[in-house]
């Protein structure tokens, strides 16, 4: 018998093999697409076709469910390995000129005297993302938003590169260094909190996460509280909101105080 004779229904193996396979497929399909959808008393289908579509995973818009409009803009910034690579001296110079207007809050050399973030030596990716978010409205702040709204893409890149270029200097009011609290070094795995240090330095740094050493205690606490309350929403995938919501007030205090007390020269160089 040749292979040609194999694929005919005269061949017992062919008819049995195909028959059993098709029968199993049909029975399971009827069960999965018709019987089981109707077996769920809490779901109402208008027709069999409706049930089949639902079981097949077709995105459904039923009249009884209104999809809430997305009230708040989400961050749309995407960083790749090439977004901010190798700034020219001119770009940094242009950034320095633009940065004149930031100096009133962030300090003339990027060290704030007013509980605003210190930007000297911050990762370019971080400043780039925050400025984009302020501009798009994904993050809002009465003071920052008006500054950011008129910046062009190039200006944002220049500013990011300029601040990243500045040396990391001690905070304006250095305090004695505190030991690492558990939340920074271990997180709280049972509540789904990764260690702060896994993204923000001390252990490792992840793209788009700022280093926090020497930043203002009050600022960091305020941001954690804003994340927890859902007032700040520009964290992609909600990772900071999920973490901040699960943190206790004591942990927020401890994390902010710890990072504020660290000298920025311990930040790992990434270039």
């Amino acid at each position: 018998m040749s292979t040609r004779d194999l694929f005919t229904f005269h061949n017992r193996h062919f008819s049995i093999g195909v028959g059993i396979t098709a029968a199993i497929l049909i029975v399971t399909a009827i069960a999965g697409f018709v019987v089981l959808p109707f077996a769920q008393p809490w779901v109402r289908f208008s027709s069999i076709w409706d049930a089949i579509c639902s079981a097949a995973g077709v995105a459904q818009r039923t009249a009884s469910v209104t999809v809430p409009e997305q009230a708040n803009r989400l961050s749309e910034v995407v960083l790749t390995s090439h977004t901010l690579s190798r700034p020219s001296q001119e770009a940094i110079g242009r950034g320095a000129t633009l940065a004149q207007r930031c100096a009133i809050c962030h300090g003339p050399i990027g060290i704030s005297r007013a509980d605003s973030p210190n930007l000297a030596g911050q990762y370019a990716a971080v400043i780039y993302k925050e400025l984009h978010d302020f501009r798009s409205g994904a993050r809002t702040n009465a003071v920052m938003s008006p500054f950011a709204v008129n910046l062009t893409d190039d200006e944002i890149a220049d500013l990011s590169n300029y601040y990243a270029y500045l040396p990391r200097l001690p905070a304006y009011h250095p305090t004695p260094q505190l030991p690492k609290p558990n939340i920074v070094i271990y997180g709280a795995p049972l509540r789904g909190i990764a260690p702060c240090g896994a993204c923000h330095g001390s252990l490792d740094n992840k793209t788009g996460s700022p280093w926090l050493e020497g930043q203002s205690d009050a600022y960091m606490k305020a941001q954690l509280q804003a994340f927890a309350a859902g007032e700040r929403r520009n964290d992609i995938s909600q990772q900071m909101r999920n973490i901040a919501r699960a943190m206790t007030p004591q942990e927020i205090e401890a994390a902010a105080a710890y990072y504020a007390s660290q000298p920025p020269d311990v930040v790992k160089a990434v270039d």
Partner: protein
Amino acid sequence: MLVNRKLILAHFWLAFALFGVALTLGAWQMFIRSPIGTWLSNPELYYRSLTAHGTVMGYVFPTLVAMGFGYAISESALEQRLVGVRWAWSGFWLIVIGSVMAVIPIALGRASVLYTFYPPLIGNLFYYLGVVLVVVGSWIWVALMSINLRLWRKAHPGAPVPLAMFANVAGSYLWAWTAVGAALELLLQIIPVAAGLKNTIDAGLGRIFFSWTLHAIVYFWLMPTYIAYYTIVPRAIGGRVYSDTMARISFILFLVVAMPIGMHHTFADPQVGAGFKFIHSAFTALVALPTLLTVFTICASVEIAARLRGGRGLFGWIRALPWDNPMMLALAFSFVMLGFGGAGGLINMSYQLDASIHNTQWITGHFHLIFGGAIVIMYFAIAYDLWPHLTGRELIDVRLIRSQLWLWFIGMIVTTFPWHWVGILGMPRRMAYFDFGDPAIAPQALSVIFSAIGGFILLTSGILFLVILARGMRAPQADAGAYRFALAVHQPTTVPVALNTHALWVALMIALTITNYGYPILNLATSGGTSVPAVYVGAQ
């Protein structure tokens, strides 16, 4: 007739050397996240190690074993020289280059995405290219197996294909088709993003593509083990295969139903319709069938050996088995682990039961018991059985071999049983650190410690294995004779064309893939707004 011994030995040595490295990493991981290790304070190192462990154990090690064993089967079962030896070497070197290419970015911390890729995480481009090269290298083997069988058929028209080669080619076809899912994910989705051509990715679609590969790959890993059950064990213990037809039916069933079931890995994924999840769940239940057939046939074959040795009574024959024979020991251990692992698998495939153990340590325990336990212990047995024929030297350390197998069995039970248990208690998987000081998980600390000790028992056994093989290379020369496979009680003289060729079953495998995967893939690929920004590992 083993002619290309160097080729086969090269595959085995590379496989086992990489296995040794990955095993060491695995033991370190068990230790470092257990209460007896001091926390590293750097989860990145843990995930780096985990990616290397998974990539080697999942893609490189079993593929090389299947390839080396496949070449050995092709030469000895068909009794003809391997055709395409240069191609075989080029496949081997592609795997070497691919492995090096993948391991460097992992070691640099640029590809800590785990071997399952997990988009939207995106690692270094060279990691993915390395994996692609490994797969391409193995596809050369698939083509060679098919070509060699075709040539044999031409020379022996109408003759029954030897069982070992029939199963071997079935395994190679299964691999060729199952690897397509991950290949599509890599080529269409991940590599364009890793190369910087795109910066968003449809993670849901990526998971569906990967599930296409992820389950059937396990059956590809399993194939050498099942071939050893049917064609090596009965011969090694002095018995006969109870039924050649039953063996062929088992391998055919694997070919047909191993493939369209991968979505039981995505029960918790919202992007897949519940109807498709149900179909995949039902087909997963079917895949237990060839395993049950195999357990029956092999037990019957073993009983034949025992009765030939003078065993009597309903169960009295069990005592008459050659328990000092490493092959007997490996088979028994493999069956015990397959039994427990298979029972766990039935829980995983049940939609409702899965909910209680989904993404917990239970799952990690399960696949280590099945793959690391039932499957890999037979890889050891295959190596021990083939070694004298490949090296022309005798393996004299039979006691050491037995101890190695015992240690692997004990180590695997001690590692995976507590692992399952803490999974039931809800301990999540893929975590680099657990705070065992917390009262909520402090009671699980003891189980995790046992598990870590098991990891070191396994490491000891793995080192012993490598030592035995290395000593086998320097043992006194001895002629092991021709390499033979087990004979059936009734050796087939004619076999129906359906059980002697793969075409019908490959066609059914592809048809079921289309029915079970076609619509979900099409639906996700055509619906807009499903892509998310990529998260680049190590980008700053």
